[in-house]
């Protein structure tokens, strides 16, 4: 069953996965080149500037991870949504089992893109001769990428599994929260609602903390 679901999910997402894997491979190469670490002559190196560039291009990793999670989650459910879930509901497995199969198949498909990121890091960073005090973080960034893609996938999978009404309700809730914060700020009351929510979500131990952590492939 799992193999069959993996096959159809692979088929639904293969083009996007190939593109994302190619981008994932390219980002570390691009980072090293943009920052100038590939230049042979170390004398002209502005290390602070170069590390800033590495940090800046590193933000492409979480963006890629979010897109990957979103693509896999939408790919997991789009065919079922088209058929109003009738096919899935008439299979001789409990609904939770089917959801687990779909979820597991999507998780598995994160692996090839994460491997491409890892390969990109290995190629880009493997032959670098860095000054003392600088280190490469290819393995850590690859692992972080896999985790970020998993978190993004899990969140969008849950949202995509619901009906349009559920998705609309979640979005409406978010919009209401932002509108409420803006209105309160207009009246001089600053409860920092949005800030608190963002902190709860993106700061440790928030579920999306993995997206905003360090993404630099080279650092001290």
């Amino acid at each position, binding site marked *: *069953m799992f*193999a*069959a*679901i993996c*096959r*159809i999910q692979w*088929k*639904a997402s293969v083009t996007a996965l190939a593109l994302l894997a190619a981008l994932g491979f390219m980002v570390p190469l691009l980072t090293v080149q943009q920052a100038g670490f590939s230049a042979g002559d170390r004398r002209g190196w502005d290390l602070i500037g170069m590390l800033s560039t590495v940090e800046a291009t590193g933000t492409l990793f979480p963006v890629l991870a979010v897109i990957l999670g979103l693509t896999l989650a939408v790919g997991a459910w789009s*065919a079922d949504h*088209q*058929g*109003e879930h*009738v*096919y899935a*509901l*008439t*299979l*001789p*497995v*409990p609904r939770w*089992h089917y959801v687990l199969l779909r979820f597991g198949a999507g998780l598995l498909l994160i692996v090839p893109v994460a491997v491409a990121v890892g390969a990109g890091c290995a190629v880009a960073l493997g032959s670098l001769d860095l000054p003392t005090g600088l280190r490469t973080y290819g393995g850590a960034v690859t692992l972080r990428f896999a985790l970020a893609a998993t978190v993004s996938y899990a969140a969008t999978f849950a949202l995509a599994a619901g009906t349009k009404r559920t998705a609309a309700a979640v979005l409406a809730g978010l919009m209401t929260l932002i509108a409420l914060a803006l209105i309160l700020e207009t009246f001089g009351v600053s409860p920092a609602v949005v800030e608190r929510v963002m902190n709860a979500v993106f700061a440790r131990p928030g579920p999306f903390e993995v997206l905003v952590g360090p993404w630099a492939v080279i650092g001290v």
Partner: protein
Amino acid sequence: MSYAIETHELQYRAGKTFELGPLNLRVPAGAIYGFLGPNGSGKTTTIRLCLGLLRAGRGGVRVLGHDVPSQAPEMFARVGYVPERPHLYPTLTVREALALHGAFHRRWDPAAAADLLDTFRLEGDTRIGRLSKGETGKLLMLLALAQRPDLLVLDEPTDGLDPVVRRDVLMALIDFVSESGATVFISSHLVHELERICDWVGVMDRGRLVAEVPMHSFKNGIKRLRVRNAPAQAGDPPFVLLARERGDGASGTEVWVVRGWQPTMRQYFEGIGAVLQDVVDLDLEEGFVELLRTARVPGGA
């Protein structure tokens, strides 16, 4: 008698306009049960309720001894379902759809699937989204048959198909039933089609089950009588008078549509001073139309 499908006071409401039930449907095990009714009468809703795809407001459903929806997965291991609208993944090829379906059904018969693929002249490498309506109908039937079900639930399986495809599909169905003895629950508004294959019939109208009888009694029980000099009051006839209409011309002839007719009932007309001129057998479609017409008269049927 054991039943493949049994509903008890099943009720469902969709919006303010459509209400179904209370429905007490009984599909005998081993029967080919034709589920008739005009468009919008509640056939598809009833099927979806029976399979747990919709939640009933009240009442219960048992399919092959399984409570629905709580035991739906166990039930679906034994039920082949062909829905009214195609529900398969359009990006898959025919072969991939077979592999996916086979992976979930323990009784999946790859040899039967290959045979049916051949019989239906379907190309394994064609994407489902590119199949014609007839080919999609055949693929749905193939999937349902190759899983070797104890019960086939077919919701308008031949609707919109050309006569050749319709014949192919019905032939495959008949072959399967004659081999396996499975129960078939088939909904349609194509009355002639069901007349040829069904041995039980249930008729839905406006969310109600207005008849549920063996096919032979449905076909034989409804007659059209030509009666001359009938009095205004029919008295207390020994049959059910479904409809009474003035005949052509000024001959005083009327046409009566009756249910439960027996040849021995001729003497009733002598008793009321009328003359029974003719007794005409109605085919299933005419009987179906008359039944619906009567069911729609307040207090009728």
